[in-house]
């Protein structure tokens, strides 16, 4: 039984890392303002959101199973309060911080329209802290830290996010890209001129 908790916790942790990598890569790539090759435009935000919801579920399994694993010696506070743990407090604390941030990121994103775009965006930049923390946590603690395959998976994760960053930074922005800047309204198709400048709804 204890073994089962331990295996579950390790497996769920690894899957969480992979899912968070997918989430961050999609978030970074979507800021390129261009659809991902082969996908419709709405697919990027839908995948980003759904992968993050799935990551939270797996994260719940990860911390939940290790909470009940007697060897991990976790208390309930260790899930929320970083660096208070008994066993490898530094590496565990990084994971706790990442957990808090991911939960906050998902909750604020689900309430995005109530928070307003600016406040939500500022909070969302915490993703750039959460993901590296999760990576370090995975490298530093746990049974599998130091194994070649865990290092390989981590390397692939880092490479994935780096590629998303390159996609965002190296390809031309569509607003100034091959099509050039938008035509002035007078040069548009006359049937397509109902553009009225308007701000937020009154």
């Amino acid at each position: 039984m204890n073994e089962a908790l331990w295996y579950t916790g390790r497996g769920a942790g690894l899957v969480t890392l992979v899912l968070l990598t997918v989430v961050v890569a999609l978030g970074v790539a979507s800021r390129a303002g261009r659809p991902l090759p082969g996908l419709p435009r709405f697919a990027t935000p839908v995948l980003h959101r759904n992968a993050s919801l799935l990551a939270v579920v797996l994260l719940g399994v990860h911390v939940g199973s290790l909470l009940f694993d007697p060897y991990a010696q976790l208390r309930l506070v260790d899930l929320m309060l970083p660096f208070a743990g008994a066993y490898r407090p530094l590496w565990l604390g990084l994971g706790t911080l990442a957990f808090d941030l991911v939960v906050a990121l998902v909750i604020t994103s689900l309430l995005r329209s109530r928070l307003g775009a600016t406040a939500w965006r500022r909070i969302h930049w915490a993703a750039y802290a959460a993901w590296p923390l999760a990576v370090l946590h995975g490298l530093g603690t746990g049974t599998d830290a130091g194994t070649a395959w865990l290092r390989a998976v981590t390397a692939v994760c880092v490479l994935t996010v780096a590629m998303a960053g390159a996609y965002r930074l190296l390809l031309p922005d569509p607003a100034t890209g091959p099509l050039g800047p938008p035509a002035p309204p007078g040069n548009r198709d006359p049937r397509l001129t109902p553009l009225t400048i308007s701000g937020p709804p009154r």
Partner: protein
Amino acid sequence: MSRRGARLHIDWTACEGRGLCSEMLTEILAIDDWGYPLARDGRPEPAVPRELVAHARRAERLCPRLALRVLPEPPPTRPQGGSQLPPS
């Protein structure tokens, strides 16, 4: 509200022309070469027919810039300038 339909407000100061909305609401919006939405009915706030209100709300939630708002009342019956686009 949804019995009478609704209207779609686009906040042009926030919109970055990501083109999601035109893709999801092809019945209501066309797309220009830069990804910005164009109202097919020529209105500044295009009408959202009753059966598309739930779908328009989905687009509202997904707009990466939160630039879309589904407003409760349908627009005035007469278009306010521009002309109709053929449905795609």
